[in-house]
């Protein structure tokens, strides 16, 4: 189990998923969020058959294997002549590239506005105040914000990271990226799987 407390378990699940996505980003994989979901799926299956001491580190190992699998699979199926600049098979549209393009036009701003409004007011205020202003202004505002919310700077930073990730995921969905809305609305099957995670 990630945690005995259900809400705390959900938080840990979110963090794990973000960690996995960041790993795939650095490994220059595409479909990073889908790969994160695939990693969690495999993790859940392993947890049913093996004793795991550290779920996060175990997930990290699975993710690295998946990354290697994806690379081997891509190299095996597509000849080098068919690769484009980013190492993608010709004709395969990279969703991140599509998002980059979409973000650059008016639809990006439209999606951002829509996603900001969909956030709870508390999160909305946090994301705007945390990131608004010049560098020194941001530092001062963050201290004030932490004081106002009665939490440490570190806790505030974690919240801001999580909300920013929610916002980014919302925008990706808004811009047409097809994937499960796990980050903002975890489905019941994944929530149920949390209970199968082994203790640390």
């Amino acid at each position: 189990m990630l945690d005995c407390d259900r809400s705390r378990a959900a938080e840990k699940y979110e963090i794990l998923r973000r960690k996995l996505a960041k790993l795939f980003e650095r490994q220059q994989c595409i479909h990073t969020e889908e790969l994160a979901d695939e990693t969690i799926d495999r993790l859940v299956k392993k947890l049913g058959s093996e004793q795991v001491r550290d779920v996060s580190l175990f997930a990290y190992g699975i993710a690295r294997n998946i990354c290697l699998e994806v690379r081997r699979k891509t190299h095996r199926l597509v000849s080098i002549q068919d690769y484009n600049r980013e190492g993608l098979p010709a004709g395969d549209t990279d969703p991140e590239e599509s998002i980059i393009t979409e973000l650059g036009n008016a639809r990006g701003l439209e999606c951002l506005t829509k996603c900001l409004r969909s956030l709870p007011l508390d999160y909305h205020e946090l994301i705007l105040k945390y990131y608004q202003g010049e560098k020194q202004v941001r530092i001062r505002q963050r201290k004030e914000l932490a004081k106002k919310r009665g939490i440490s700077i570190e806790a505030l930073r974690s919240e801001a990271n999580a909300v920013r990730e929610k916002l980014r995921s919302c925008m990706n969905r808004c811009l047409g990226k097809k994937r499960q809305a796990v980050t903002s609305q975890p489905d019941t099957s994944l929530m149920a799987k949390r209970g199968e995670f082994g203790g640390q």
Partner: protein
Amino acid sequence: MASSRHERALQYLLGELPEQEAVEFEEQCFADDALFEETSALENDLIDSFVRGELSEAERQQFEKGYLISPARRANVQFSRVLAGHLSTLPPGEAVAESRNPPALFSLQVWMGRLAWATIAVVVTAGISWMMLANRRLRHELDLMRARQAQFQQQEQDLRLQIAALDAQVRQGGAGGQVRPEIISLILTPGLNRSDAAARKLVISSPAPLVRMELYLEQDDSRSYRASVQNAEGQQIWETKDLKSHAGPQGAKSVTIEISSSLLQSGDYLVKLDGKAANGQFEEAEDYRFQVVKR
């Protein structure tokens, strides 16, 4: 220690760590949520600084070379660019209210603003309506004034035509009794005898001219006078009373009488002027003689 973690996280993000060290750092992040959050926050701040142009040239080059190695990371940068752009358009402190329309719908400030605008709109509309009505009324009055002016001009034109016609009639001598009768003036001085009457000859050619006579006085002792006209036979043909003397152009006093020429025939005439005394009785004052020639 913290500075060391921060420095290592930065090297990891910018791809400056050897692969083995990078893997070790990733493992630490997976095991330590705080380190992962710290690294994520650093990554976000790094991206934000990049899109806001807050990095030095060397940092920017390192960021582009070491961080922007995948489409997913470039998408993160683009997301940050859109977010920063949106935030820069919002005034500080009003960011939430500005960007959340549904709650703003119920804010007192917004409703007060809308009420103010609605009031302005009503006042402006009322003002425009009043101006339109006033303008219409003024135009109506202007039209009436123009009509009256045209009417006056027409009347003036008609009068000018009538005057011109009358002038023409007068010049032709055919006034037909409607024209003011001609006045023939005659100045008489007292003390003339019958033989001198011819010297005061009055020629009457018009059908019914009015004869005005100025009777000069040698002495003006009376408050009023009575004048009478007698023909050559001594018959009185005309008389008038309560005449007042008046000063002439040279200061001489005179009494003026007007008598219709129809009463006069060709021949000699005597004008007797009596002055009214203080006791009310008339006393003889002056005699005047003149001769009429009718043609």
